[in-house]
């Protein structure tokens, strides 16, 4: 029987790591992720969690230590944010390419410069191409659920791909919310013991991370890409079984009052909940608006996304980062996912919430109204950004 508790999202993640019976934790503290490794270190120190906590000198080492521990068959966890994820970057690729199943929680934060410890999605967007399964959370409950679920999916023998769980820095990581904490027995029922078939063992030597010459590299990369795309069925099955046990249901593209909506707003992460308040207000006034949020970011849920927007006239994509020289990355991907469709909504991109800039309900009202305006009349602005000071120049 689950018990209802109030937990900060960071502590909810720590509880999930504990209940997933993780063997190795290696993390380097960085704002706004600090409360996760802090709580885990406490759990290991006071004997609540039987695991090895490896203190490391950097994020590069934190993830490297985890990959080493997965290689011997230990369930492993790390967590980081922002510059830490950037310092980790080359190892992030290695984890996915070497198919090491593990979970990393990223408390999404902006990137320097200027130095900003506050939230946006710049850090995770720089990891779009790394080959990890990537999901987004909206609240403490989801942070807990997706961490436990992450191990289940990553370790599935048909998958063997690490999972990155994204939660917004501060606006989620530091927020205390009511949530249901399940019984250990329920988690054990959902998450079997980690049995890594390629564990390093002196009795049966093998090589991880060998050289791939031009005669084999192409095949290796195609195998990796196909494995990531095919992981979607296990991802969905994992959510189904999670729902059967815990009663909470997740899907690659979450929909909120979206079924019959003429105008759809697309968001990712915790700001979706603020946007939903705006949607409710507009619905009360009789407007045909709804919201979809991408729970699953990689592999990109093409099929589910196309289906979710198929009835809409306008899709307004809200981005929390800039792909410099191009604009909003989610906007660009959403638009390209619809290009080959015979009938598709007009797709508009608006950027906001950079470096911790608040997005209140009224700001999402602006996103919706401006988005509809652009869909009808077009825009001659170089870039559409919520609340930016200074008159915008033409493209």
């Amino acid at each position, binding site marked *: 029987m689950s018990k209802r508790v109030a937990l900060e999202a960071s502590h909810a993640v720590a509880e999930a790591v504990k209940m997933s019976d993780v063997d190795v934790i290696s993390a380097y503290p960085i704002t706004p992720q600090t409360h996760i490794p802090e709580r885990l270190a406490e759990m290991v120190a006071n004997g609540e969690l039987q695991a090895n906590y490896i203190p490391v000198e950097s994020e590069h080492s934190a993830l490297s230590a985890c990959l080493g521990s997965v290689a011997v068959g230990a369930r492993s966890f790390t967590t980081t944010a922002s510059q830490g994820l950037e310092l980790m970057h080359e190892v992030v690729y290695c984890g996915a390419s070497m198919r090491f199943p593990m979970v990393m929680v990223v408390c999404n934060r902006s990137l320097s410069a200027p130095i900003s410890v506050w939230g946006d999605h710049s850090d995770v967007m720089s990891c779009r191409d790394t080959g990890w399964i990537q999901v987004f959370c909206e609240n403490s409950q989801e942070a807990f659920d997706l961490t436990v679920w992450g191990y289940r999916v990553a370790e599935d023998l048909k998958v063997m791909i690490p999972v990155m769980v994204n939660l917004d820095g501060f606006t989620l990581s530091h927020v205390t919310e009511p949530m249901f904490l399940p019984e250990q027995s329920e988690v054990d029922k959902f998450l079997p013991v980690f049995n890594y078939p390629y564990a390093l063992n002196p009795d049966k030597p*093998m090589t991880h991370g060998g050289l791939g010459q031009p005669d084999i590299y192409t095949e290796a990369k195609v*195998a990796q890409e196909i494995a990531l795309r095919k992981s979607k069925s296990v991802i969905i099955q994992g959510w189904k079984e999670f729902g059967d046990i815990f009663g909470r249901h997740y899907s690659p593209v979450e929909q909120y009052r979206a079924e019959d909506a003429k105008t759809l707003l697309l968001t990712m992460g915790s700001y979706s909940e603020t946007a939903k308040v705006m949607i409710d207000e507009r619905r009360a006034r009789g407007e045909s608006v709804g919201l979809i949020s991408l729970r699953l970011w990689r592999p990109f849920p093409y099929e589910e996304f196309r289906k979710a927007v198929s009835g809409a006239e306008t899709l307004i994509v809200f981005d929390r980062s800039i792909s410099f020289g191009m604009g909003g990355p989610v906007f660009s991907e959403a638009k390209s996912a619809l290009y080959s469709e015979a009938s598709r909504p007009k797709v508009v991109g608006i950027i906001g919430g950079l470096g911790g800039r608040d997005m209140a309900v009224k700001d999402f009202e602006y996103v919706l109204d401006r988005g509809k305006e652009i869909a009808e009349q077009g825009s001659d602005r170089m870039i559409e950004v919520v609340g930016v000071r200074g008159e915008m120049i033409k493209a």
Partner: protein
Amino acid sequence: MVDKKLKSAYDFTWKNMEVGNIVTEPGNASARRTGDWRSDRPILDKNECIKCGFCWLYCPDAAVKQIDDGYFEIDMYYCKGCGICASVCPKKAITMVEEVEE
């Protein structure tokens, strides 16, 4: 002796590769024809050879073998043509000649 019939890279497709490209058979590098990188080929003159074994000792890839009569032979399946054997031979019995396509 090495089984030279083990799989070459070209026997692999994206479908039959090990997860994460893990090498599950230890020591299988011996099945790889590393000799095809060679641009210079060592030629050993038996008339000059004194069987000192320097070439065998110095070869970084263990491509030099001693045969029954005590002389040495270079295995072109592995020899990368580095020229160390020619360089260390005290009798200058090994010369490096350019590989040409036949």
